């Protein structure tokens, strides 16, 4: 009767019970001790599981793995990446982790393909790439793990077209994308390599880009050929690719070895 008057959303009086003062005291003491023990156990657990050496922490590794699995589950080859208009283009900074390479490598550059079904390794120069494949344009967002993003206008060949023209070994599930011209902060060679799942490589908006903002790629943006995979964080978008290797097992990844995620799907 009363509850009806209050309606479904109306507040009910708290359930009460009469108890001996000693009983209340005893229960309070018991619960406080349990609470204190739980807090201490939690602190001890956190102390042994967290920081110091985060890369060896089982708990943190599991969270990262779960998060990668979630990212992989969210990915769909049929879901297209939002595209933008030319008026929405923003500035894209040169985010080479180390020094920007000297452009001297560009004239002698070629792309090596390994792990092909044919069993031979193939070297292609930029002219044969541009003439052999059709060029696609897209204006997409590049998102950096650091939190900034930029809307950029790219043109290049579809990675999928490359896979069709030079089929990988049948067991291939991954491609190792590599740049040997990458430098560290003091200008010494520091080869850059990432793992890319073939599902992402086959996405229609995953490009091997040759042009940026309507111009041929400059050395700052990875001349003459760079990866543009808008479904991945920027750190997978390798500049100045020198080699693609198709493999069955997940290859090494530069940033995963430095404590970051290995899938990096966004």
């Amino acid at each position, binding site marked *: 009767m009363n509850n009806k008057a209050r309606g479904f959303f109306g507040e009910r009086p708290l359930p009460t*019970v009469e108890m001996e003062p000693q009983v209340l005291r005893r229960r309070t003491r018991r619960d406080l001790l349990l609470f204190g023990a739980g807090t201490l156990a939690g602190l001890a657990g956190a102390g042994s599981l967290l920081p110091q050496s985060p890369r060896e922490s089982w708990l943190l590794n599991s969270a*990262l793995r779960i998060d990668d699995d979630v990212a992989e589950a969210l990915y769909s080859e049929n879901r297209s990446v939002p595209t933008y208009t030319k008026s929405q283009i923003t500035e894209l900074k040169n985010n080479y982790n180390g020094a920007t390479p000297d452009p001297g490598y560009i004239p002698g550059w070629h792309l090596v393909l390994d792990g092909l079904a044919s069993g031979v390794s193939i070297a292609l120069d930029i002219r044969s790439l541009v003439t052999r494949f059709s060029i696609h344009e897209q204006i997409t967002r590049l998102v950096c*793990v650091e939190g900034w993003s930029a809307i950029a206008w790219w043109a290049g060949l579809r990675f999928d077209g490359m896979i069709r023209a030079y089929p990988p070994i049948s067991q291939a599930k991954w491609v190792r994308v590599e740049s040997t011209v990458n430098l560290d902060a003091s200008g010494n060679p520091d080869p850059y390599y990432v793992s890319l799942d073939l599902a992402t490589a086959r996405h229609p908006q995953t490009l091997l880009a040759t042009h940026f903002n309507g111009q041929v790629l400059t050395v700052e943006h990875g001349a003459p050929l760079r990866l543009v995979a808008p479904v991945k964080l920027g750190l997978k978008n390798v500049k100045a690719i020198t080699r693609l290797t198709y493999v069955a097992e997940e290859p090494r990844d530069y940033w995963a070895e430095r404590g970051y995620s290995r899938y990096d799907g966004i």
Partner: protein
Amino acid sequence: MGRSITLRKGAISASTLSEPPGVLVAKRHHLLVRWSHWLNVPILLGLILSGISIYWSSPIYQHKPDPGNGNFDVAADIGIWICAHVPGLHRYRNPPDWIYNHMSLGPGMLAPALRLHWLCAYAFMLNGAVYVIGLIAGGGWRGLLPRRADVLDGLRMLRYYLGVPYAKLSRRQWQHPRFDTKYNALQRAAYFSVPLAGCLSAATGWAIHKPIQLHWLAAIFGGFDAARVWHFWLMWVFILFVVPHVILVFADGWDTLRSMITGWSARVKRPEVRAHEQ
């Protein structure tokens, strides 16, 4: 649990007149509500510390680089200001990093901060689900819903709090506004909006974390960059809630703190008072 209490309540009302009364206690918080409440302490701490470390790698609030030191981060400016004005900090080695050294895992900790943030973020969402289950199982959700009179009652509470220092100093009587609900209007507003802020934090977090696959979610908050701003200020909602929350719990006394640990509160009116309602 609820059932056994009602049975005993019936037994009590039949015998209260003859026996000396014990302590009348009310079950105020469901076990799951209490657990998830306390788990929020380490989880939110982890989220905030790692979150500010993530913020460091690309601050939302930037200005043109300072020609003198190349600094562009407003948080670094604040650190420099603190070290220049707070006594004892004049010799601090790296003033631009003061905020990050004291409110985060530190500068240059992006990879560990991201891992800790994902761990705590998943824990936060799970914990939020446990909290909601506890609210439903214990019926506590009804006590959090806003009422029509809450705006006026909230202002009365605010007037009361603002008047407390003067009343204490002048040793005057200062009556706490009366209410016969579980929470007063201000508490209700806070306890209703903080879970809401939790949901928004999770939603903006996903929008930033998966801005391509969940671009519709980022669009709800005005796009990727705007979602980052939302996410940042939602953190401040928690910080600005926690400070008065902790102060007021201690001001309110042991019974309130105990009720969040044991579930029981001994601040209950005798059933005779409520008898006319039945």
